[in-house]
């Protein structure tokens, strides 16, 4: 009870404290605007963006990529993790390529994505997916493999179909591992969307950031950084809540 109250206080107080620290730093060290604009300048910029409505198409674009990339990426990651987790032989054959591909820096591969998927939305979503799937895949693989041996025995006794086994036993048992991956994936989805927009296109928060960066509009830049981070935090918190609910039995 006391703890929840404290928790509530902190959820409000932490951001305020951070803003105060930011402001204090800018004032005290006389940090120039183009390195780090003061909070009020960023706030004004935010107000302007929202009041004039210019932000909406950009926001919608980015949210769209995040959601699509996250959804497709986690689904793909889950499917791959499932295949690799269930059939170690598959892991031995395709694993090395997957891991190799995954470590290749995405910024360098981006031109390839454009080559293959064009300049449109597809290549952006593909880029996001390529960042999202891996943590989910690793989590799913581990989760499915960590199912306790005696639960496997129970399934074998009851001759559960693979589908039943997956849905009724393996998935619930793998929730902690899968969600650990999903949370990382949520952050990756935001990074991916921004990176994709950085590479091409004239809409989206990522584009606005490049625009702000190359035209030295630092308040706009930091306003976008804030909005993106809030998006990331929102996705993350949604996941954390879902996980808490799914794991309420613990």
């Amino acid at each position, binding site marked *: 009870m006391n703890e929840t109250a404290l928790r509530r206080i902190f959820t409000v107080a932490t951001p305020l404290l951070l803003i105060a620290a930011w402001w204090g730093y800018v004032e005290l060290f006389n940090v120039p605007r183009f390195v780090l604009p003061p909070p009020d300048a960023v706030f004004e910029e935010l107000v302007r963006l929202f009041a004039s409505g210019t932000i909406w198409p950009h926001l919608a674009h980015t949210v769209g990529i995040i959601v699509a990339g996250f959804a497709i990426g986690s689904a793909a990651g889950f499917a791959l993790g499932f295949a690799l987790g269930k059939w170690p032989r598959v892991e031995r054959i395709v694993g090395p390529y997957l891991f190799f591909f995954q470590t290749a820096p995405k910024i360098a591969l981006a031109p390839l994505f454009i080559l293959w998927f064009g300049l449109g939305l597809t290549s952006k979503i593909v880029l996001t997916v390529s960042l999202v799937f891996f943590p989910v895949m690793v989590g799913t693989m581990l989760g499915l493999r960590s199912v306790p041996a005696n639960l496997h*025995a129970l399934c074998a006794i009851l001759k559960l179909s693979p589908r039943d086994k997956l849905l*009724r036993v393996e998935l619930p048992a793998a929730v902690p591992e899968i969600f650990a991956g999903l949370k990382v994936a949520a952050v990756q989805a935001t990074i991916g969307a921004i990176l994709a927009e950085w590479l091409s296109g004239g809409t989206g928060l990522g584009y606005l950031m490049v625009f702000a960066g190359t035209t030295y509009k630092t308040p706009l830049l930091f306003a976008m950084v804030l909005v993106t981070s809030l998006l990331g935090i929102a996705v993350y918190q949604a996941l954390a809540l879902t996980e808490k609910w799914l794991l309420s039995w613990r």
Partner: protein
Amino acid sequence: MGHKVEKLKPAEKTSSLPVLVSAQAVTKIYRSRHGDSVEALAPTTLDIHEGEFLSLIGPSGCGKSTLLRILSGLEPLTGGTLTWRDGPPTAGSDVGFVFQEPVLLPWLSILDNVRFPLDVFRASRAEANERARAMLALVGLGAFEKSLPKELSGGMRQRAAIARALVYSPRIVLMDEPFGALDLLTRDRMNDELLRIKAETGSTIVFVTHSIEEAAYLSDRVAVMSARPGRISAIHHLDLGPQRSEAIKDDPRFYQWLSTLRKELR
């Protein structure tokens, strides 16, 4: 004394019941991670008859659980053959297994745990609930159907696991020390319930226990195992009649069997 000891004889003429499953020179060698191997089961031959109650007794580590797991198909053989009369069980509802530790799904309530097999076998919701509730009442957990496994005591968890294994009336039930964590009174009650269920459904039961009284009280036959390498040293056909009840404890033959079995185990 009128009892018959079969010393590892493959065919058991003594039983009039048809053989349900026959283990022929079955062996099990576990390989441990360091490469050394443990011979958990030396060549073991055992017929299990349709509808009988067979107990396995023997010292800790002698291979009782291993034999049970082999019979259930959980553990692959490293030698010998396992022959089922009508082919190995194909439906999940054919075999019931009570593990040595209660294996419950920690995210399901007790009721849902007991209902789990029925859900898997796609029984109707209403019927599943009804049967699961009845089973829970039988094991004395009626008041705890909403609890999670971690909210139960050790013995209560084991009772839930027993309820789950019996709720779908499997044709053969394999039970690994099911009543070990129960107090005497509950244990006696569970023994009688088990006999009643068996009489009703005609199930075959293979039962591992450390209690000689329990083995003698419940079983048509008792297989005595000895350790390292595990093997069946004797099989006793108990001539205490098919109908068991508290009355049997007045029968002197019951006590004779107790002392015989106790001696066998030394």
